[in-house]
């Protein structure tokens, strides 16, 4: 591990793992206690539509509109457009799914499942339509934490700050709608707005996690640290902090194992988390018995 740290890409990957785990622990706690895993999965997969649109815009629309010189001057890193596309698209799908869930109480899960698939399909089709350059789709499906750029680290850190700020500002309302939405409504808390804000924070978290483990496994990394943490601590703040620490541990150990054994990093991180989750289930009864004594 120590000799791995001399590589820039490894240092960047480790830092990305740490930064993403912080948002993941905070937002994952809400996803677990409010039981909104399915809609979070929907937002994650729909984000792929934004990636497809980002590529299409970057490689087909902009070059067609601009002269060669202007295009070269404008040309940012290849990864930026898909990321911006993913953020916008996942925010839009988060709001849309939230509204669908609120307006039509029945069969909301069906509609969310449909939007989940449509988002992915849009992504695939737009990548097809993109002229020439074909991207490595697998890096979005399974993550590419080793390819994280320093500029992306600042971007991820920025999202962390936004998410933590929002959670601090709306902490009592977020807690209230998670615990008892009816009571919160009666107390005139704007429950729909707060819920949509929560979904938007999930969207932002999911986009940055996509870099680490890929969108297929986002949900696992979002929920497992929080689920483990919830078994051992009481109180939402403590649950968030422990979940973040666990996330950092899992991404670091996963990265190290993937480096040592030359395995896919995202999948290794998920397996480390999964093993820890299963262990926590086995250990929980013992802890309970020990506490009861």
């Amino acid at each position, binding site marked *: 591990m120590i000799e791995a740290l001399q590589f820039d890409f490894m240092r960047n990957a480790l830092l990305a793992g740490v930064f993403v785990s912080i948002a993941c622990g905070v937002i994952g*706690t809400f996803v677990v*206690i409010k039981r909104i895993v399915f809609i979070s999965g929907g937002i994650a997969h729909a984000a792929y539509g934004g990636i497809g649109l980002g590529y299409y815009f970057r490689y087909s629309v902009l070059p067609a509109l601009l002269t060669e010189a202007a295009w070269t001057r404008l040309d940012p890193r290849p990864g930026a457009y898909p990321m911006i596309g993913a953020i916008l698209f996942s925010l839009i799908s988060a709001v849309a799914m939230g509204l669908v869930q609120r307006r039509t109480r029945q069969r909301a899960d069906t509609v969310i499942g449909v939007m989940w698939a449509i988002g992915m399909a849009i992504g695939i089709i737009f990548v097809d339509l993109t002229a020439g350059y074909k991207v490595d789709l697998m890096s979005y499906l399974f993550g590419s934490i080793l390819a994280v750029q320093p500029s992306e680290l600042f971007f991820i850190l920025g999202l962390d700050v936004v998410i933590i700020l929002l959670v601090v*500002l*709306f902490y*009592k*309302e977020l*807690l*209230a709608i*998670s*615990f*008892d939405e*009816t*009571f*919160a*409504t*009666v*107390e*005139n*808390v*704007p429950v729909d707005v707060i819920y949509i804000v929560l979904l938007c924070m999930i969207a932002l978290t999911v986009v940055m996690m996509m870099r680490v483990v890929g969108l297929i496994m986002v949900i696992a990394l979002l929920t497992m640290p929080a689920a483990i943490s*919830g*078994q051992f*601590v*009481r*109180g*939402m703040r*403590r*649950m968030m902090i422990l979940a973040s620490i666990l996330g950092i541990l899992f991404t670091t150990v996963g990265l190290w194992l993937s480096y040592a054994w030359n395995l896919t990093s995202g999948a290794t991180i998920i397996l480390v988390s999964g093993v820890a989750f299963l262990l926590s289930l086995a250990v929980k009864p013992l802890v309970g018995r020990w506490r009861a004594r």
Partner: protein
Amino acid sequence: MGDGQISGMPREAISMQHVWAGYSGEPVLEDVNLSVDELDFVGLIGPNGGGKTTLLKVLLGLLPPTRGTVRIVGKDVTEGRRYIGYVPQTVAFDQDFPISVWGVAQMGRLGTRRLLQRYTAEDNEIVAQALRDVDMLHLRDRPIGALSGGQRQRVYIARALATEPRILLLDEPLSGVDSEVSSSVYELLSRLNERITILLISHDMSAISAHVKTVGCLNRRLFYHGQKRITPDMMQAAYGCPIDLIAHGIPHRVFGHHGLEEVQE
């Protein structure tokens, strides 16, 4: 409170006039009229599916009535509901939710502290007093999932009290608690009734105890005369059949034989 109350005249805490409500055009409440005076202690019973939940939703402004008017302490529902302390059923509840007794009771201050405002020392004093009222302050740091059914009920009542309500609205307050606990909850309610109007809704006859001042029966229509007695006609009208046993065994022969026509006013 200085807004034109004529002394000696009981003021209306809740008023429902010709209220119809339901879902997708299907009425569940039909022409419900209810007038609850301040400091009354009303128990409403009715069979499951008889519109108890719908009535609660209408009173809490969660379901707008299709027809009729609802006033809470003389105000529109969305404004008046801040005078209601709502105590929900505690049965459907996530045991693992990471929150303490104090955290739950503190939510009673949500309506007072708006977005971006923090709870103040004054809030904490009110929450502490509410927990003291229900004798739960010593368990303030206990996780809510580690409490017994009766204790959890008390915490929910404390949360409602922390809203500084003029009306307590309780939904099936005694489901899932044994009779010993339920009598202690009733003693608590009767103590609170010295300063707060109480409306209690249940499917369970035994929930209507000696502490309740007036009773009514709800089955789509409401049979309520502001009296303590449940007449067999009310029961028959509400439950739609002569009653042998309702829930915990009150044989219908304890009521005299009356004709249905006496119910009509």
